[in-house]
């Protein structure tokens, strides 16, 4: 027998205590940076928003239906910007929610393995297209196409970017919904089919309800992306804050206004400059609310199987 002295060598092994001590410190510092950044952004947002409301009445901000930041007699009602965002979100949702869930049901419940292997990557490619490309697509293709049968459609409008935002969030909703449906155990489907239920009854009455928390979260996350979407609306929706519900007219969203101001239309220290933060804060409240709704849905409707 060869004596390898394994026990002795293990006993004499000197591990570096320094590495064990420094690694958690380094990792903690890295973690804290992201937390501090978030806090920093929030702090700036709040301080500057408060400053804005020192110059402009918060009552006007919340109740006026006119937003005219660049006028010599400006008006500061946030309503048209919120309405602009909501128009885009609602149109996007009408496009993306039924198609996204429909596509997910097809992929998870009906498609053969082969079909799924081909279609899913294509959907994911769609999710990787830069939004500026979607914006260009909206204004150079979708808008003229829609104008060919809706003549009163303005060059800048809500309909075209709304549809394109819907196309943009569709893969996300489809993919997350598909994950939720696939995670429903097969024993559920067997239980239903074994009762003499048809495939569609099984999908609609057992699988979809069992996955409802995941499906709801997918929809809410998709919509919160639509709220924050900037490029498509900046390109194709125009920059006219609009408090009418007409979707054929030009409009401005909260994000669209922020782009307009930050791309050089306002000098530092002016009311317009500070309004940026108030609008940013409003936008932040909206997306935060969406995230909280998504988490609430996930928790509230979570099914354990």
């Amino acid at each position, binding site marked *: 027998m060869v004596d390898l002295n394994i026990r002795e060598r293990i006993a004499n092994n000197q591990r570096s205590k320094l590495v064990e001590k420094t690694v958690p410190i380094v990792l903690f510092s890295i973690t804290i940076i992201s937390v501090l950044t978030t806090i920093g952004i929030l702090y700036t947002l709040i301080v500057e928003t408060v400053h804005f409301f020192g110059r402009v009445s918060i009552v006007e901000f919340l109740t006026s239906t006119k937003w005219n930041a660049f006028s010599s007699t400006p008006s500061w009602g946030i309503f048209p910007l919120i309405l602009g965002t909501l128009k885009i979100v609602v149109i996007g949702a009408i496009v993306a929610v039924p198609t996204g869930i429909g596509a997910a049901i097809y992929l998870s419940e009906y498609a*053969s393995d082969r079909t799924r292997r081909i279609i899913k990557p294509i959907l994911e490619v769609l999710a990787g297209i830069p939004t500026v490309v979607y914006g260009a697509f909206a204004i150079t293709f979708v808008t003229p196409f829609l104008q060919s049968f809706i003549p009163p459609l303005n060059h800048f409008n809500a309909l075209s970017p709304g549809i394109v935002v819907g196309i943009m969030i569709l893969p996300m909703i489809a993919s997350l919904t598909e994950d939720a449906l696939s995670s429903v*155990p097969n*024993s*559920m*489907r*067997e*239980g*239903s*089919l*074994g*009762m*003499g*239920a*048809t495939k569609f*009854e099984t999908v609609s*009455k*057992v699988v979809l*309800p*069992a996955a409802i928390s995941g499906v709801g979260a997918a929809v809410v996350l998709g919509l919160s992306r639509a709220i924050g979407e900037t490029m498509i609306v900046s390109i194709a929706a125009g920059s006219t804050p609009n408090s009418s519900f007409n979707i054929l007219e030009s409009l401005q969203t909260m994000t669209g206004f922020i782009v307009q101001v930050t791309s050089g239309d306002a000098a530092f220290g002016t009311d317009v400059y500070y309004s940026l933060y108030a609008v940013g804060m409003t936008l932040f409240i909206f997306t935060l609310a969406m995230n909280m709704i998504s988490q609430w849905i996930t928790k509230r409707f979570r*099914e*354990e*199987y």
Partner: protein
Amino acid sequence: MIMTKEKTSAIHIDNKNLNHSPMEMQNKEIFTSKNFNLWYGDNHALKNINLSFHENEISAIIGPSGCGKSTYIKSLNRMVELVPIVRTEGEILYRDTNILDKNMTVEELRTKVGMVFQKPNPFPKSIYDNVAYGPRIHGIKDKKTLDQVVEKSLRQAAIWDEVKDRLNDNAYGLSGGQQQRICIARTLAVEPDIVLMDEPTSALDPISTIKIEDLMQELKKEYSIIIVTHNMQQAARVSDKTAFFYQGNVIEYNDTNIIFENPHDKRTEDYVTGRFG
């Protein structure tokens, strides 16, 4: 009694010696397989199965893992077709209708031939909605009938007293044994003709197992039951007839007491005495 081998006559004599006339004893056939073969891709999983099951009896299918017993019971309600690469040949007659026929609608078959699965699989819904699921999908909508169906089925499944005060609670709040009885109630709610049970107690504790075995004896009065089990004592305790499957073949099929006390095939004897499997 239907035999797969030429030993049939010998068994009949055995039965006569026990003062039973086999022809009088014989209940109506519910399932008859004739030269039934099944492949998963190239894997010949069931080979020339010839078997008959009878009304108001409990028929057990035993055999070692991979012998094809689960595949066979799932063929009886065509659930086996959920595996896309399955191919079958031969006939399975359900009360004289060949269920493998193209004209057979699986939904209709599965309504008459209910199934209880290995792992309790209630839907993530209330106890009430679980049991009412079958009647509802088959078009029964009025609350009064549903209430009665739910109560009747839960009573039949011997779980009414345990759940009657919390019918609106999620079925997942129940213990495994209770969940399995909810699944049995769910199956009974559409008043099937036959209940297939695929290792219904393999995921349960001994007390729940006994409850379900007792329940089967009650159910046998109104239903015909076919049960797959890897637990030989269970087959011996609950069943009237037992089929021994081995490597995709039916080795022996007979009255349960004969299979366990006086098997005719050496392999059956080795299996039931625990020498392999």
